[in-house]
Structures are given as C-alpha cells and as structure tokens.
C-alpha cells in the first residue's frame, strides 16, 4: 500500500510538473482595476495549486552602459495564478523583465523586453525553467541595439 501510495504521489507530481508556463498580457487581461497601471500582467498555467506557486523575478537593465538589476514588484489579485508587474525600474535605459516561478517540482521562466510603448510581446521568450544569464543578456543586448523595438 505504501509503495502504491508513493507511486500515486509521484504520478501526481508528474501531472503538476507538466506544462507549467507563463502567459503574459496587457493589464486588461487581469480584469482587475488594481492592475490597470501595471507594466504587464501574467498568469501561470499548468500549476495545480496556483496559490502555492513561488513567483518572482528581476528587471535587468542597461543604463548608460551600466548594467543594473532591480528586484521585481509583483502583485497578486483576486484570481489565483494571475499577477501584475509594476514598473519599479528607471524609465531611462533598456530593460527586460526576467520572470521566474516554481510550482511543486516544476519551474518556468520568461524574459519580457520592455519598449517605449510597454512590454514587447513578440520578443518575449518563455522557458520551462528559469532563463539563463546568457539568455537574459542576449535579450537585453538585442533590445539595446534596437532589435526588439
């Protein structure tokens, strides 16, 4: 019975682990007034218990040639699994948002470039693990060179 129980738990974890990702959107997607002025909103998918997901990240920037990193301001709302990112990084320079999350034993990541008109959906990258430093740097460099705007 114990072995069956362990097998069942492992199977459950596998279910939880599969397909854990982020989806990003404009504040309107959140349908919450508090998120109207967010830089963008995002939600987790494939997480059985979204309320228990561990979410965070940093804003990575290049300001006048100096590399900067700012801990992200992420807020939740009434809907489990829906989050808002508020701009707490300087307006000056080029910035990408590096999102990270874990749900049970699964991880997800996203790198979201921020342009003059807001987040750049088309250039955003999504991973089933946190983005590597190299991936973040590549995105930032591309943005700084005007590749994403």
């Amino acid at each position, binding site marked *: 019975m114990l072995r069956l129980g362990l097998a069942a738990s492992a199977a459950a974890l596998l279910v939880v682990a599969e397909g854990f990702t982020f989806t990003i959107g404009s504040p309107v997607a959140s349908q919450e*007034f*508090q998120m109207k*002025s967010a830089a963008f909103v995002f939600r987790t998918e494939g997480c059985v218990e979204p309320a228990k997901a561990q979410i965070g990240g940093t804003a990575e920037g290049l300001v006048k040639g100096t590399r900067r990193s700012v*801990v*992200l301001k992420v*807020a*939740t709302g*009434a809907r489990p699994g829906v989050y808002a990112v*508020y701009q707490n990084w300087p307006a000056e320079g080029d910035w990408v948002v590096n999102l*990270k999350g874990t749900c049970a034993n699964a991880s997800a990541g996203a790198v979201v470039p921020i342009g003059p008109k807001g987040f750049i959906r088309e250039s955003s990258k999504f991973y089933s693990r946190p983005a590597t430093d190299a991936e973040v740097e590549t995105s930032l460099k591309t943005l700084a060179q005007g590749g994403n705007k």
Partner: protein
Amino acid sequence: MIPGSWEMENGRKILHAPSHSLVAHLSDREINAAIIEACRQGDRDAFRALYDIYKDQVYSISLYFFHGDQAAASDVTQHVFLKLMTGIGRFRGDAEFSTWLYRLVVNACMDAARRRKPAAEISDRHLEMFAAPDSQEEAYARRQMASSVRAGVSALPPKFRIAVLLRHFEDLSYEQMAKILGCSMGTVASRLSRGHKILAERLKGLME
C-alpha cells in the same frame, strides 16, 4: 528597497521579495489606506473595492439592527456608500476613514429607526425565530441559537443594540467607538456592559 519588506502601491500591498519568495496578496484589509487614496484620485474601481471590503459588515450591522429587515438593511447600506462616495475627499488616513464610515452607519441606522414605527416588543417568553438570510451554520441547533440571539439583539434598546453590533462586526477600539457613537469611552463601556447583560438575561436558557 529591502527584500522582504512590504510597501503600498496602487492599492496593493507588495512584498519586496527575493525571487524565490511568495508575492503579496491584494485582499488584505491593510490595503485600505491605499485604496482610499485611489478613490480620492478618482478610481471608480477602487471605490468598488472599498465597497467590497466593507459591504458585508455594514449590511450585517444594518440587518441585525433592523430585526432582519433586508429592505431596510439594503437601504442603509446603499445610503452609507453613496454618502461615502461623495465625501471621501475629506479623508486622510485609514483610521479616520473607518470612524467616519461607521458614523455614517450609526447615523443612518438611528435615523431610520426613529422614522420607523416602534418594533413590537419581543417578550422574553416569545422570542421570534426569523430565518438567517445567509446563514452559514450547518447544524440545526446552531441555527436555532443564532436565531434566538438575533431576536435578542433586535430587542435591545437602539443605543445598546448599535454598540453591541459595532463591537461584534468590527474590530474597533472603544476610543474609535466613542467617536463613532458621539459619546465618551465610559459611555461606550457602559452601553456594552448593559447591552450584553440584558441579552444574557433574556436568553438565559440558551447556553446552559
């Protein structure tokens, strides 16, 4: 920014957390001050959020004050929030806000009570059992108990009744209640003492 520290922004309580930490949740009552500020800035949805935070307490106090009269409770609730909306610009902080909000509630309840016909005296031996409109109790015995208590509260003199309900539904200090009720803290204490004592006397058999 200190990782792990809390900050208010745009009506949210936000945790400056290391990347592996949990994020803050928006529904904490501690965000009132920021929501109030957002209301003062003209955010309609902030007003709706403020309404959502306080509506049940305001409605509950009104409902039990008016002997379960849902129409009266709805009228008072609507009146209070409309008045709140037109006057919110006068407020500077959350502590002052709740005092003012509940003063509106008290005034509305007491004014309406004065305009209504006196409620029929509910004798100690014939306490009415009216149904809880949104009762959460699962057990019949608990429902009966709550019905009796409701009737007992309804039978209290209005000044004791409103003090008892305010104390129960809101975590207010006596100092705040004194401001809300427009009396001294000693009077608040006296009304609560006498109100609860009368209730216990009338419902003597209930909890023995």
